[in-house]
């Protein structure tokens, strides 16, 4: 056998390698469209007698960003300009684009489009009145938030004292606020809570309760007992049965269930009589 024959025998893969290289070049030049189907909740209040329904859109994932919000924007730009949804920061900090994606409440701008062949179902936040398409009416949620007085309240200061000097706080006291202040009020947790579904009018819901706890546990706030006294009824806090859907679904990784548990402990320990006296006296 000559040397040439030996070389040919020893390297049989060279032809195969050349074949693979040409095929790769072909696919890189013209990518196969990766079609993903989205089944999106639609409702038009301007059409009289319109019923909510699902509409299926097909998006080429090669021409669209990785997140569900990118897909929604692509659909609105290229396929259907009437698709309506809230959005703003596109980075998971404003809380506008909260919706139910694939059965779970999350922010559309933080939810990666799963690259499977199944249809992705998109609904508005559960058990909320729908204004249009994916836009729910959040007014009750915001009203409940204002009702807990989410601002610093100090005793024995006058209008003139405000702004004179900063209220100091130890490192340990500031650490108590970690995991509470990061809430962006997207309402994913409250609308995932079955108790909130059945009692949205009277039960405050995990988002608002976590913020109530945030102000109770802030060392600079003097009205802790009064804030606790506000919760002394059957519905505001005690509809929570520790179902823990809230913590599971929070897109920011916060734990409202734990905050409510700690608040229940505080409610058991504080002196209710004195707090009521103070509340009624002020």
């Amino acid at each position, binding site marked *: 056998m000559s040397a040439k024959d030996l070389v040919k025998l020893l390297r049989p893969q060279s032809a195969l390698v050349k074949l693979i290289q040409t095929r790769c070049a072909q696919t890189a030049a013209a990518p196969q469209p990766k079609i993903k189907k989205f089944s999106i909740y639609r409702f038009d209040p301007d059409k009289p007698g319109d019923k909510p329904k699902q509409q299926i859109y097909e998006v080429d994932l090669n021409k669209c960003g990785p997140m569900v919000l990118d897909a929604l924007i692509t659909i609105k730009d290229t396929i259907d300009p009437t698709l309506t949804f809230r959005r703003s920061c596109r980075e998971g900090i404003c809380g506008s684009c909260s919706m139910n994606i*694939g059965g779970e409440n999350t922010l559309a701008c933080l939810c990666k489009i799963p690259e499977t062949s199944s249809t992705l*179902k998109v609904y508005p936040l559960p058990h*909320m009145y729908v204004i249009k398409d994916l836009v729910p009416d959040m007014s009750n949620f915001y009203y409940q938030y204002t009702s807990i007085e989410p601002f610093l309240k100090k005793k024995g200061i006058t209008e003139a004292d405000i702004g004179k000097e900063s209220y100091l706080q130890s490192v340990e006291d500031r650490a108590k606020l970690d995991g509470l202040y990061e809430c962006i009020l997207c309402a994913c947790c409250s609308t995932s809570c079955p108790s909130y579904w059945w009692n949205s009018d009277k039960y405050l819901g995990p988002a608002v309760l976590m913020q109530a706890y945030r102000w109770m546990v802030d060392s600079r706030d003097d009205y802790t007992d009064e804030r606790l006294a506000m919760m002394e009824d059957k519905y505001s806090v005690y509809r929570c049965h520790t179902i823990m859907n809230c913590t599971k679904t929070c897109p920011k990784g916060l734990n409202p269930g734990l905050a409510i548990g700690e608040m229940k402990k505080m409610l058991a320990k504080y002196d209710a009589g004195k707090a009521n006296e103070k509340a009624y006296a002020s």
Partner: protein
Amino acid sequence: NATGKRPLSPHLTIYSLPLPSWMSVVHRATGGTLAMGFRLFGIAALVAPTGFFDCSLNYLAGIPVIFLLFKWAVSFPYVYHFFNGLRHLIWDTGRGLSLKAVHRSCYFIVGMALFISFSIASGAGIFPSAEKPALAAK
């Protein structure tokens, strides 16, 4: 609140309820069945003719599989509700409320409840039942 003609967005029909929420549902269901079960049993004990319970138990005992299922159906609600109730009491102290802890305790409780209720029902393993000698004597 201009909700007037606005539709309510779907909830139970679309939400993918995770395991901890199902455990809460089963806790309520077992609580209800235990309560109703005890009441019905009490009323039945009052109004039933003598020997009624012995006859029905003997009849059931004749079909071993059904008997086992029946015993399991009585023991599972009790054991499950007991263990999940313990978890609720632990939650009331503020412990175990992290997401990881909740999932771990879910698996633990389901496993324990199934194991112990089946042990009680079959009379095998850690809970030897007193019925076995009686059935054998028949």
